[in-house]
């Protein structure tokens, strides 16, 4: 039995639920440091509407039923926040996915944004596209969409590998403004020299809070910071024990 894992899980659950209850409704909402990758995306939505183009959102090749489920859900938060703004500007985004399980969820988010405004007849399922089943083929296909459609900005958020470099190269060729959020080290390594507005690692999971500013997202970031301090204390404690117990070693 993995005692350590179970303890960590219960601790995380308690902190999150406590935060959601205590600061979920009352009190001033927490302040978070802004991340350029998500802040500039709102301006891009306005620019896309004015210039008659669209934003291309690449959600990566992570599926919903595997290891990358949560990374893909974080990417979908970007779509959810952008869908409302894009529908009210009547400039819906083009969303490319690399796994078929992500397709129905991304289409639902766009459809609901239209239904909230009573414009169900304007919803076009073709705005969400399943490009290809393998990561490299997906990246090359998404790059093709970014170059041929009337796209003004590239946003990459989700589970990627080093093949994300094909999408950023296509964006650089069309001189598009590019923003990205990735969790895998290989993807971050490939994006770091190409894109200045990059959210790395854990910052991808703050997409909802950054884009919408909703209370539940901000409060869960507070819970994340509390758990971070607890993890640091655990590491310091273990390192101290290891150091002391082997004092004779040197």
């Amino acid at each position, binding site marked *: 039995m993995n005692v350590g894992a179970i303890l960590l899980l219960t601790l995380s659950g308690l902190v999150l639920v406590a935060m959601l209850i205590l600061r979920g409704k009352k009190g001033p909402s927490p302040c*978070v440091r802004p991340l350029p990758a998500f802040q500039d995306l709102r301006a891009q939505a306005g620019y896309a509407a004015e210039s008659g183009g669209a934003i291309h959102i690449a959600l990566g090749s992570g599926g919903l039923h*595997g290891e990358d489920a949560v990374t893909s859900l974080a990417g979908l938060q970007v779509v959810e926040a952008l869908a409302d703004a894009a529908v009210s500007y009547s400039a819906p985004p083009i969303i490319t996915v690399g796994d078929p399980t992500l397709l129905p969820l991304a289409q639902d988010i766009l459809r609901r944004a239209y239904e909230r405004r009573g414009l169900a007849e304007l919803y076009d*399922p073709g705005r969400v596209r399943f490009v290809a089943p393998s990561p490299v083929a997906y990246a090359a296909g998404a790059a093709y969409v970014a170059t041929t459609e009337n796209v003004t900005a590239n946003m990459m958020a989700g589970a990627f590998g*080093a093949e994300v470099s094909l999408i950023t190269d296509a964006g650089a060729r069309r001189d598009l403004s590019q923003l990205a959020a990735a969790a895998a080290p290989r993807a971050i390594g490939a994006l770091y020299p190409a894109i200045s507005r990059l959210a790395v690692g854990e910052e991808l999971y703050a997409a909802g809070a950054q884009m919408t500013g909703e209370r539940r997202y901000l409060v869960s970031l507070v819970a994340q*910071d509390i758990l971070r301090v607890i993890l640091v204390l655990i590491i310091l404690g273990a*390192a101290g024990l*290891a150091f002391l117990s082997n004092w004779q070693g040197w």
Partner: protein
Amino acid sequence: MTPEILETAGLVLGAVLTLMIFSYLLGDNLLYRLALHLFIGALMGYSFGIVLREIFILKVLAQLVGKEYIMVAPLTLGILLLIKGLPRHAYIGNFSVAYLVGVGTAVALSGALLGTLVPQIGATGRALSPASLASFRAGPLDGLLIVVGTICTLMAFNFTVPRKQRGLTGVWTRGVRALAWVGRVFLTFAFGVAFAGALTASLSIFIGRIQHLIDIFTNIYFRVIGG
């Protein structure tokens, strides 16, 4: 069509397709796009064939024939998911999407706990133990650097900023900001190593493809000259 000729024709086809993809180096052109769509189409058809054979024929049908009627449950969920194709009744498919999200989240959560949090915290904690330091050249200094680096990198992702900056919280905020600065230096190390790894891997594949092209051309060249 002897296997010999088929083999050579296949290799030549592979080489031509490789050159069509490499034509991207000169600029985005029709040859590259045709090769790309040929690849995506072939992969789509091939994967669809595998999904049909491996999942539906060998698994679902086999178990249904073997009177395991429990298979009806995933079948129903699957059929409900197909209704997502009709926007008007899309909400009926939410049961299947919820199932996928639930199971996927559990797999990812257990992967994070068992695969990363527990082993990495344990390894960082043991970084100062003699067993792990024996392999390091500078001994305890390296171990200490790993522990400090991990903690600073972890603090670099701190999100919330306390509202009141007076007193203790002010000290805490400044402390976190200093740790975050050091953490970003360690992060740059990690990104540099990750970028170099990605470059080396793709360079190895690039070398393999160039070598493949050279082998085919020399093969054909000598056969034509030799023949």
